[in-house]
């Protein structure tokens, strides 16, 4: 058994999210260098604002402008900033209660070192040069020892208020498929297809995942299956997928390879699409450099008898 395979796996997702009236006002406000909070039923001003009162769950819409200056309520020194964080030089994470607000906003504080930060220190917003209506329109906070800034009493009404944000994210993984699937992938490199036999029910699973889903036991015995197989069921694809270099219509089928206890799926070619049928005998076609069969084609054998594959549908 060779080493377990590993490969980098990056998951990136630009979630497009709509915002409600309160979040729209807050985020649009940041674009215009205005910080808005929302007043709760009992008169507290929440910054950042939410649409429902955290205590009573009543809908709240009463927007209130607060100052871009405030007080640190707690902090933590981040000497080693990570990707995506507001500053790429050492900074303090801070919760800041802006003047006029009753709750605190999380953000970064640009300060020379941990000895210059303390709970209770005064700070002000440093605006990002380019602003789009996002929490990152606040570049960070910075120490401030001046007068508190009196807000102008903005109504929360804006021209061209934003209606959504794109929450971009990227996570990097090192994917390892484990022992069973490593064996499967390595066999594909030799143009062989292997499964694993359950020690209890004797069924051969392909691709193997190391466990029999029926018996809930580990599978270890490796078994080569195919190359011939039988079409158990199929569909005709009439819509061309983006970036797919296959003419439509084409046939996508479940194929029970000889010796396998369940069917794999693959494309059927080498036969007109309207002549593909259940029971058709097929074999894999490997193309140069491919890591799995490109498609399956008819072998010319007589069709398999239904009773031979009905358990594999």
């Amino acid at each position: 058994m060779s080493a377990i395979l590993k490969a980098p796996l990056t998951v990136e997702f630009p979630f497009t999210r709509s915002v409600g009236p309160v979040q729209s006002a807050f985020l649009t406000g940041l674009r215009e260098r205005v910080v808005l909070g929302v007043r709760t039923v009992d008169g507290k001003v929440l910054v950042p604002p939410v649409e429902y009162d955290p205590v009573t769950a009543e809908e709240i819409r009463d927007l209130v402008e607060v100052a871009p200056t405030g007080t640190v309520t707690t902090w933590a020194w981040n000497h080693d900033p990570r990707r995506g964080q507001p500053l790429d030089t050492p900074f303090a994470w801070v919760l800041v209660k802006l003047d006029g607000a009753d709750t605190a906003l999380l953000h970064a504080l640009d300060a020379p070192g941990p000895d210059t930060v303390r709970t209770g220190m005064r700070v002000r917003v440093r605006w990002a040069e380019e602003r789009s209506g996002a929490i990152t329109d606040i570049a960070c906070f910075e120490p401030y020892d001046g007068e508190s800034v009196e807000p102008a009493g903005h109504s929360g009404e804006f021209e061209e208020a934003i209606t959504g944000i794109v929450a971009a994210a990227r996570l990097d993984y090192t994917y390892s498929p484990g022992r069973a699937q490593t064996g499967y992938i390595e066999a594909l490199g030799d143009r062989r297809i292997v499964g694993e036999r359950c020690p209890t029910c004797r069924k051969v699973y392909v691709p193997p995942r190391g466990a029999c889903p029926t018996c809930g036991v580990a599978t270890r015995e490796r078994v080569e299956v195919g190359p011939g197989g039988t079409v158990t069921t199929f569909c005709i694809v009439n819509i061309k997928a983006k970036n797919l270099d296959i003419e439509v219509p084409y046939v996508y089928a479940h194929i029970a390879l000889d010796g396998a206890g369940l069917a794999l799926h693959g494309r059927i070619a080498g036969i007109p699409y309207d002549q593909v049928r259940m029971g058709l005998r097929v074999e894999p076609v490997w193309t140069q450099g491919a890591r799995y069969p490109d498609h399956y084609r008819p072998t010319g054998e007589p069709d398999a008898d239904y009773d031979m594959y009905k358990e594999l549908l």
Partner: protein
Amino acid sequence: MTREEAPGARDIAVVAFAQTDHRRTTDEVSEVEMLMPVLHQVLERTGLKAADIGFTCSGSSDYLAGRAFSFTLALDGVGAWPPISESHVEMDGAWALYEAWVKLRTGDADTALVYSYGKSSPGSVRDVLTRQLDPYYLAPLWPDPVALAALQAQALIDAGATDEPALAAVGARSRADATANSHAQLRGSVSQGDYLVRPLRTGDCPPIGDGAAAVVLAVGERARELCERPAWIRGIDHRIEAHGLGVRDLTDSPSARLAAERAGAYERPVDTAELHAPFSSQEVVLRRALGLDETVRVNPSGGALAANPIMAAGLIRIGEAAARIHRGESDRALAHATSGPCLQQNLVAVLEGDPR
């Protein structure tokens, strides 16, 4: 509904518990391969077969695996054919146990298998966990769980509730206790290390690792048949706080306290508490919020500072508390699980053994 006992309410117990050895990496096994041995162990301990189980519930997270519906692959380890009654929570397994407990209370099943697992090793768990934050105001800033816990720790220090040496002592005690726990990832003397995010040092933070756990629940007489000394769930409840961190008092955990009250934790003293406190500072918060004094043995297993397989660490707290009752080392134990940043969500179960 935990305290108002309905007529004919069913007594439910944890009758078996198993966990993996928790390790930094487990490349050689897939999730189902990591999970299967603990599933087999709990079934062996009860003599049950997969087909005998009335309800199965699991907890895990796709974000750890980086793949959608990853839990469906883990189901292969259960033996889900012929079809079983099954459910999943994208949460720590403690919440899967809560769902199973509800299912048993309804009378739909007499036994339940609960399992959970997490492989943190393929990704960067500090980055992954930022994706559970509110997507409008927090997630775009990528504040990682250590940073958020450090804000909570500083708030505690400012409030005079702890200091850095006291926090270090929590970590040291946890890892010393873990020497008796062969499954733990960090055991014995562990360096307090440098600041990860000040005021938290590496010694204040949990190890990152892979692991799985499983428990079997059973009702009434069935529990007595399956286990010599069942760990009866006298109450269980979970509560959540406002998602805005700046709305909360980070030095307190009113949700943990309310869950404990609703689970009946304050009706009589407990002798043991398994607290899911991944950061040393969170143990301080929980001890204060739950009113645990020096008479209570806290985290004899070593707790999450010794092993914190994400999505399983909370279920393990319930399992460890139950196992102490099984062994006769505890008569009444509190088990706690948390989820989310800075103890946002909290679950408390009170477990008891039969009087001796």
